[in-house]
């Protein structure tokens, strides 16, 4: 049995005409790191909300099909219990700061306080989470005094500290510099190796190719393609459907047309491109 199981999931928001998600069938194994790519309006965020329980418990709309995580059916659960298993962090870090706390340390402890974790354990877990994402030195700062990238790290840490079984991330590195992005990706990779299941919406193709186990390409609410990162991210289907390719893939694609790229497979990352052009 897959850890995450979506069966024929179709969802339409109250005020949209066409369904945002159409007939999604998706199985994810425990500890798998899955990345979701797709153009704007493909339904990526809605998929995240569906996994995190906000569809259908928070947004009202028409839903059919089933969402199952860790053997529990979403429609039979409540949002406050669902979030104990599934953590969600999204793009805009500013709106993810609770506003109820004056320091980063307290901010990260917020979720643990809400869910009744004993005081001593809160301190241990927050310290551990701060070390994990390497923001220990921000602990005493006001969350509002941080840069966008730092706030995103705090938002991610605030969810990681709750130790969800399924971690859903909607563009968690959009405001980070390349070093920050690399660190976040490797932390998430580490979490996945520790058994956490990860679903991550991301545009940074090189990073996906380096870190994710599987890629799902979403377009107009349907799964267009899924498979190994290198296969999916270099596929012609993606290029034809308006997906943003990595700069190395686009370059090699053009080079192939000119006969300069001799290999069968196109590269996604710099390393692959360098190797391919050398031969």
């Amino acid at each position, binding site marked *: 049995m897959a850890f995450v199981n979506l069966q024929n999931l179709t969802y339409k928001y109250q005020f949209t005409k066409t369904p945002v998600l159409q007939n999604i069938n998706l199985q994810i194994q425990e500890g798998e790191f899955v990345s979701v790519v797709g153009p704007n309006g493909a339904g990526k965020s809605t998929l995240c909300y569906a996994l995190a329980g*906000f569809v259908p418990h928070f947004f009202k709309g028409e839903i059919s099909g089933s969402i199952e995580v860790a053997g529990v059916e979403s429609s039979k659960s409540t949002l406050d219990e669902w979030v104990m298993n599934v953590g969600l*962090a999204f793009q805009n870090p500013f709106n993810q700061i609770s506003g*109820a706390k004056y320091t980063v340390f307290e901010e990260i402890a917020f979720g643990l306080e809400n869910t009744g974790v004993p005081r001593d354990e809160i301190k241990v877990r927050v310290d551990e989470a701060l070390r994990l994402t390497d923001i220990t030195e921000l602990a005493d700062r006001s969350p509002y005094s941080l840069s966008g990238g730092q706030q995103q790290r705090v938002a991610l840490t605030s969810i990681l500290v709750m130790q969800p079984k399924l971690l859903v991330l909607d563009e968690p590195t959009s405001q980070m510099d390349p070093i920050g992005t690399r660190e976040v990706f490797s932390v998430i990779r580490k979490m996945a190796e520790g058994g956490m299941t990860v679903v991550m919406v991301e545009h940074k193709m090189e990073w996906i190719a380096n870190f994710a186990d599987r890629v799902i390409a979403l377009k107009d609410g349907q799964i267009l393609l899924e498979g190994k990162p290198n296969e999916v991210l270099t596929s012609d289907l993606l290029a034809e459907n308006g997906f943003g390719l990595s700069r190395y893939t686009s370059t090699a694609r053009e080079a192939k047309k000119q006969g300069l790229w001799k290999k069968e497979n196109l590269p996604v990352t710099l390393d692959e491109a360098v190797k391919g052009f050398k031969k």
Partner: protein
Amino acid sequence: MHERLSFYVKRDSIIHGLNPLTKVYLTLALILIIFTSPWYWTPHLLVLIAIIPLGLIGKVGAEFFKTAIRLILPAAGFLFLMQAFFQPLGEDVIFKFYFLDVTQESMMFAFRNAMRVFVMVSAFAFLLLTTHPSELMSDLTRRGLPGQFAYVIISTLQILPQMQAKAQTIIAAQRSRGLDTESSFLKRMGLLIPLIGPLVFGSLAEVEERAIAIEARGFTSKRTRTTLHQIPDTKFDTTLRGVLILLVILSIALNLWLS
């Protein structure tokens, strides 16, 4: 961006170490006593035996006197002048100012009221200077105040300065596109319209995201909440609160008995 709507000054003092509720009691007790005590000199005496010592014990003397000079004294002084001049009390005219008579009674009356205002505002100033808002709220939550209510108070204190900063950004953005902000008053009133739109609607849209974010962190969890910081509540606090309640009752009783 770093500003927040809080007067709290972090110090290590006996007052800071008191339970937040005790400090609320202290503030309310001072206010109730100055308004109910039948004795004329009560507010004046309290300034000497309560307000000034509290400032020194709480190690917020400097901050307090700065606030007092800039804010509380001018307000109390203004009240004093208004009442001294316009209160038609008594016959014992001290001096005339054109057509206005200032009597000894109106002076006394005005002096007491000014002192009352001084004590009242000072008492609140102490509460704010020595009590961290989130500490007060988590203590009240522990005593049964709904978590949602505490959240609304604290997040408002934090988000208002953020909105202020955002308003500045919007104004700057609109000025850079040629919006006139330095002309006549009426024209600038018109300027508020293009500001309010983005500010208000933008904030409304943010509410949904923020709701999702705190919901994802178990905000509506039915489990019993815990708190990160242990808030002190000693025997001394309980005793002090009892004494304060007794003093207030005494003051009210004396007032009723003597009237």
